Structures are given as structure tokens and as C-alpha cells.
């Protein structure tokens, strides 16, 4: 159980694993990102969506396991970037390695399946995206840079 709030410089938010809290998570991300004057509105929106996707997956994983633990969202503001990590406590055995080459979104017939957009969207919306398996669940790290980067 690593829900401890480490005394770093960042913001940590812990929420019950319920969909009702998604709008709150987005509000926190927007408010945190607004503290970084280098981040434009469009990039804040990108980050808001990416974090919402990661949190949605975490909520789903908790629901599948019936886990009552909370989900933690950590935001770290640095001069040149904002870094958000979503950590769940649902040890589903999910292996992010299996997702290394997801079907591109424009594959014919792709839309026959209603799901599976979350991780690809996080990948394109964030400048960096990493999924790590933890003993107790999954950690998704999303980074958005303040200055324009290769990713427009």
C-alpha cells in the first residue's frame, strides 16, 4: 500500500474509484496546469483528456476487482513541464508490454470495437506516456512540455 503522500513539491490527490470523481480530477489538473504560465489552453486540454483517460482505466480496473482502495493522482510542476501520475490499486495482472503495438486508430474495421481508444489517445495527447506495473496495481505517467515540442 503506497498511498502515502511523499513530501515532494507536488500536488497529490486521492479519490474514491468512482466515475463521479472524474470531473474533479479534471478540475484539479486544469488548476494545477494553470499554475504553469508556459502551458497554453490547448495543451492543458490535451493533458486533461489524457489524465481523464488514465483515471477512467484505473476506475474500471478497481471495479473489475471490487477494490475499495483509492486512486492517487500526483501532479508535479517543473519549469518546463507538468508531469501527472495516476496510480491505481488494482492488481489485475495487466501487462502494459502487451500494448506496445496497438492497432492504429485508422485500421479498417477498427470502429467495430467501441473501446480501446484510451491508451492510444494518451499516447498522442501527452508528450510522454509511460505505463508501469506495480505490485499493487498500475502507474500511468503523463508528461506535457510547456514549450512547443515535436508533438504540436
Amino acid at each position, binding site marked *: 500500500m503506497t498511498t502515502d503522500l511523499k513530501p515532494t513539491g507536488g500536488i497529490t490527490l486521492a479519490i474514491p474509484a468512482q*466515475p463521479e470523481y472524474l*470531473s474533479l480530477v479534471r478540475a484539479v489538473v486544469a488548476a494545477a496546469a494553470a499554475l504553469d504560465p508556459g502551458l497554453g489552453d490547448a495543451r492543458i486540454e490535451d493533458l486533461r483528456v489524457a489524465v*481523464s483517460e488514465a483515471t477512467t482505466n484505473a476506475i474500471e480496473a478497481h471495479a473489475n476487482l471490487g477494490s475499495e482502495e483509492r486512486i492517487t493522482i500526483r501532479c508535479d510542476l517543473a519549469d518546463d513541464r507538468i508531469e501527472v501520475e495516476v496510480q491505481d490499486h488494482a492488481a489485475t495482472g495487466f501487462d502494459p508490454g502487451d500494448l506496445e503495438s496497438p492497432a492504429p486508430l485508422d485500421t479498417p474495421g*477498427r*470502429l467495430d470495437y*467501441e*473501446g480501446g481508444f484510451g491508451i492510444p*489517445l494518451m499516447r*498522442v495527447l501527452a508528450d510522454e506516456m509511460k505505463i508501469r506495473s506495480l505490485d499493487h496495481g498500475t502507474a500511468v505517467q503523463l508528461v506535457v512540455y510547456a514549450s512547443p515540442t515535436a508533438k504540436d
Partner: protein
Amino acid sequence: MLLTVRISQSGSWTILSVHGEIDMATCPQLRQEIVAQISGGNTHLVIDLGGVEFIDSTGLGVLIGGLKRARSQGGDLRVSRVGDRLEKMFALTGLGDVLAVVDLADPEQAQGAA
């Protein structure tokens, strides 16, 4: 943080005007409304997204599901008043290639993909 869905008619098209954010918390409501309309025989739907500033993949999934269901009943599902953010989401996911954007006044006339 509820979604509101207002129903109106434009010719043979049923318009669902959505207000709010479409995410995992609110999408069951939209899905139910779409299913209810199609089950009731209104198979030609326009989702008016003018009041929607946020949609994520869960919300996009509901639109895809509605599109498939409408088409399977000989109808269609189109969208209207798509803002910049939603347009970006449609473009990134390829959903824009299959979902026609229409004018609320004339849903028959597709303006091209989202």
C-alpha cells in the same frame, strides 16, 4: 455534474441536444437515450454537441455504438455543432471519418466528415 439531453425533431431526424461533459460518469445516460430513441423507431439521429466542451474515449465509444445500432436499423447517427476540442478528438481517433457533421436545420445534407 449531470448531462442534460433535450429531444427535438428536424424533418425525419430526431435531434438529441446534449449539455455537459461526456465521460464514464455521464455516458450511460446518453447511451440509454440513444437506445431508447432507436428502439422507439427514431432511427435517424443527430447528436447536437454544441453544449459539450468535453468528451473522452468512453463518450466516443457511445457515439460509435449508437452509429452501429442506428445503421443496423436502417437509420444513421450524425453529429452537429462540433467544437474545436471535439473535432480534435474525432480526428485523432478516426471517428471523424465515419461520423458525418451536419447542420441542425438540414441533417440530410452532410457537410463532410467531422
